[in-house]
């Protein structure tokens, strides 16, 4: 028995040492940093360019090769990053995107990179102004803007149009700034002609369009001007979402979740929507420039890109997949070098070449390699428009400081789902969601006295804004916290001179 024990113990010890010695860090003469990002095939090329960029810029290791190596790791919807981040063992650099930016900033494990970013040239000021708010946070004590992230890429979601899908049915493709009414009319006609003779609908105008953009197109955002309360009960917000449900359940111009499942197409980067867009089942697809990664694999299409339909205020959403340095990283210096690379012209060029959304550097889009890629002449009409949309129409999500975006989205989506499934009226469902979000806000205020003070101030401001607007008076920009309303008020001419 003793011998058996010793034998097993020895085998396990040797195996442990063997495993430890086989770690990449043990084999490498230069530090290795881990980059948690999405499972995009482009990442491999980006790492190769990073290594070349280091050599070209004199960041050399003892063997004459690059000074830092990068290992790419993937994540499952952010949960791995959260668990590892709060536990002190996360990757040195992590990509964060979508509605998680605020959540991650609040968890406090992202390094404040304000100073080093200024020094090394990866300040948020070097990239697109539309996404500044996503990369930074205003320190409530100092009132200064602090940077936590730098973009890996930027997206201005839009409707990508397969012009042939319309012309083959004798229809004119949609115009760049199409109104909701025009869009609905076109979609109905498309649906009628494309599905003629079919037992069940196989052709739709699009897989989906972000509902919040359609509501914004009506001039209403999910939160009010000071983000102190939701606008879920606003008549325009309800109307906009009711229309969307009608498009799915009655007009059948957008597919239901069941229709989507019936397509049985989930393969490839970008998911099934782009595959179905390429096949012609969807005449348009709501995506960012990164959708081209999948589109390029399926062959040339006669493409156009348009702003989502609107009712007076054309807009789209600006988003980013941004990289942050982990506060608990043992390789911060190396991680900063990687951030420096993200702000380089070489990196932006890889984004341009790979069509991995929009590059971090705006000036890189002025080049012909961006607007007229030689290999893809069918895309020439879209690249400049993407840059134009990002500069003119893209607005970031309205993330209230008083409640987590993920929580609001969940309650809103649940209410919408109820109405979509005819379990309740949208009014009732939104009323419930609104009251739940208000409860969440009150809970957060009880937990945080500083936030509570700010909330009281913002409530007063909101009352003033409402009073001014009722009287038809203009308001100063500084009163408005919601990024959508900042742009909307400016567009409507509702800001005082100071605001403009």
């Amino acid at each position: 028995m003793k011998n058996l024990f010793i034998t097993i113990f020895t085998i396990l010890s040797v195996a442990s040492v063997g495993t430890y010695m086989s770690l990449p860090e043990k084999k490498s003469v230069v530090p290795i940093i881990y980059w948690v990002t999405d499972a995009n095939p482009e990442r491999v090329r980006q790492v190769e360019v990073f290594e070349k960029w280091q050599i070209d810029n004199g960041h050399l290791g003892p063997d004459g090769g690059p000074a830092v190596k990068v290992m790419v790791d993937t994540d499952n919807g952010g949960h791995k990053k959260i668990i590892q981040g709060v536990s002190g063992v996360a990757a040195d650099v992590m990509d964060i995107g979508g509605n998680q930016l605020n959540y991650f900033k609040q968890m406090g494990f992202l390094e404040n990179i304000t100073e080093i970013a200024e020094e090394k040239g990866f300040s948020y000021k070097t990239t697109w102004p539309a996404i500044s708010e996503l990369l930074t946070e205003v320190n409530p004590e100092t009132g200064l803007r602090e940077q936590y992230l730098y973009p890996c890429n930027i997206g201005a979601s839009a409707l990508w149009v397969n012009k042939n899908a319309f012309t083959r049915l004798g229809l004119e493709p949609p115009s760049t700034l199409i109104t909701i009414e025009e869009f609905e009319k076109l979609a109905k006609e498309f649906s009628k002609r494309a599905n003629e003779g079919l037992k069940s609908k196989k052709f739709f105008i699009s897989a989906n369009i972000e509902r919040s953009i359609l509501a914004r197109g009506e001039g209403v955002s999910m939160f009010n001007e000071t983000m102190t309360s939701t606008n879920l009960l606003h008549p325009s917000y309800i109307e906009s979402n009711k229309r969307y449900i009608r498009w799915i359940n009655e007009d059948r111009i957008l597919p239901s979740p069941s229709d989507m499942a019936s397509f049985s197409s989930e393969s490839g980067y970008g998911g099934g929507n782009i595959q179905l867009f390429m096949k012609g089942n969807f005449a348009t697809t709501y995506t960012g420039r990164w959708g081209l990664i999948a589109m390029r694999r399926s062959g040339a299409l006669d493409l156009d890109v348009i702003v989502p339909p609107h009712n007076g205020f054309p807009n789209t959403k600006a988003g980013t997949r941004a990289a942050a340095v982990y506060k608990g990283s043992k390789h911060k210096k190396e991680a900063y070098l990687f951030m420096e690379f993200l702000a380089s012209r070489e990196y932006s060029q890889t984004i341009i070449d790979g069509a991995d959304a929009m590059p971090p550097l705006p000036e890189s889009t002025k080049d012909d390699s961006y607007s007229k890629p030689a290999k893809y002449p069918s895309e020439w009409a879209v690249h400049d428009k993407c840059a134009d949309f990002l500069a003119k129409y893209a607005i970031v999500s309205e993330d209230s400081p008083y409640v987590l975006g993920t929580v609001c989205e969940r309650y809103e989506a649940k209410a919408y789902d109820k109405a979509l499934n005819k379990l309740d009226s949208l009014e009732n469902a939104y009323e419930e969601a609104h009251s739940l979000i208000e409860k969440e806000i009150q809970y957060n205020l009880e937990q945080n006295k500083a936030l509570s003070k700010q909330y009281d101030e913002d409530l007063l401001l909101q009352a003033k804004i409402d009073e001014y607007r009722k009287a038809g008076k203009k308001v100063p920009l500084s009163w408005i916290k919601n990024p959508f309303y900042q742009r909307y008020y400016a567009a409507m001419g509702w800001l005082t001179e100071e605001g403009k």
Partner: protein
Amino acid sequence: MNKREVKDLAVGVGFLAPNILGVICFTMIPLVMSVIMAFSDWDLTKHNMFLDNELKFVGIDNFTKLFETGDFVRYLGNTLFFMIGIPLGMGGSLLAAILLSQEVKGSSRQVWGSVFASFIFILSICLLVLLGLGQSAMIILIVGIVGLIAVIGMTTGVNGYRTLFYTPHFTAGVATYILWKKMYNKESGVINNAIRDPLMSFAEFNQALSPSVMQGAAVLLGLVFALIIYKVSTHWGQMWIDGELGTMAWIICNAFVFIPVITSYFWSPLGFTKWIIAALGAFLLIVNFIRYFTKGRDFNCDSFAGAELAIVFALIILGILFLLVGLSAVTFNLPAMTQDGVLLPPDWLFEYSWAKPALMIMGLWGAIGSNNMLLYLAALTNVPQSLYEAADIDGANAVQKFWNVTWPSLAPTTFFIFVMSTIGGLQGGMEMAKTMTGGGPGGATTTLAYFIYVEGFETGRLGYSAAISWTLFALVFTVTMINWKFGNKQGE
């Protein structure tokens, strides 16, 4: 302790140390921390190694919050709904085990004859599929597969069947869920393809009938419902009088079958048939109860005597009654559903009323061919042959032998399976919901386990999430206590 004993102890501890350390680090410490979390405001956006906010203890706030939004109660309801399938799954496992304990190997001539016939049959189907027979070929293909299974049984004997029935247990959960998701597909799923044509034919047939015929059928189902209630309540009442069932056990059994009676009263799709089901069912149950109670007992026994087997039986009846209620509702509404002469197959995973039953059916498939079946198989081999021989001498038929010999002999196993399945049911549903429906539509398939996951990671409120977990634990613990109380008794 002498030197030798110390040495032995050291070796023993050495062997156990890795496991003990593992349990301490990965089970005990997280367990203690989760208790702390449940009574505190632990929130990832406030409390982690990079933030120095003070942890506040909030007493039972997290637990009272569970009942503020209604989500917890709703998702507990979903979890319990899925558990209605447990008695049915157990019944399926038992049936499978009984079938698999029979010897089925055929004679050489039968085997080769069947092999040849099946080969020709499957080849013909493949040709039909290739030639574009489409949906009808799918039905024939399923029949062909059933034929193939028969051939496997005849060539390999019962072992082949045992392997086939146990296959769901080998299959990885997520892979199974994806497969079922494809099978449930509204347009291209094998299930809808198989039932689409028969449904259409049925719709045409049904349209030709007067609506009162189908409503009459619904009433008939309601009467069957009431009859079952009458029969089981009579059975339990007699057992109580004979001293085979304790008073508490008798009350619990009656309470269980009262659940579908009450539910049907509040279920609008039943139309006027709810009066037959609810009123007649309740009337018979209550009258029978009072009748036996006023008669008084001939023999006394413990309050919980016979509870274990009677409760499992009551739960099986509960499952059957719910099935009848569902069938009655469908039958009652058929004239309205087929008024255009069209009856489309359900949109299994994306229709609120179908999503839960769809997942339950899938669960049933997994449950029948699971370890439960193996446990029953093992238990069946332990039933003394002498009992069957005695029953044969008494002239008992197959049903009587099952009811009076097999079923009571399997009682400890049945109870054990029931308790373990209940615990599994309370804890389960997470992978299923995440893979197949994302908890939708409209939260119809969100279970408590999935709710814990969403609350923990999407909001970072570990305190609240831990409170849900501990409430779930309390439910599981209660079931375990029932097992401890009655399961041990059975063992004795």
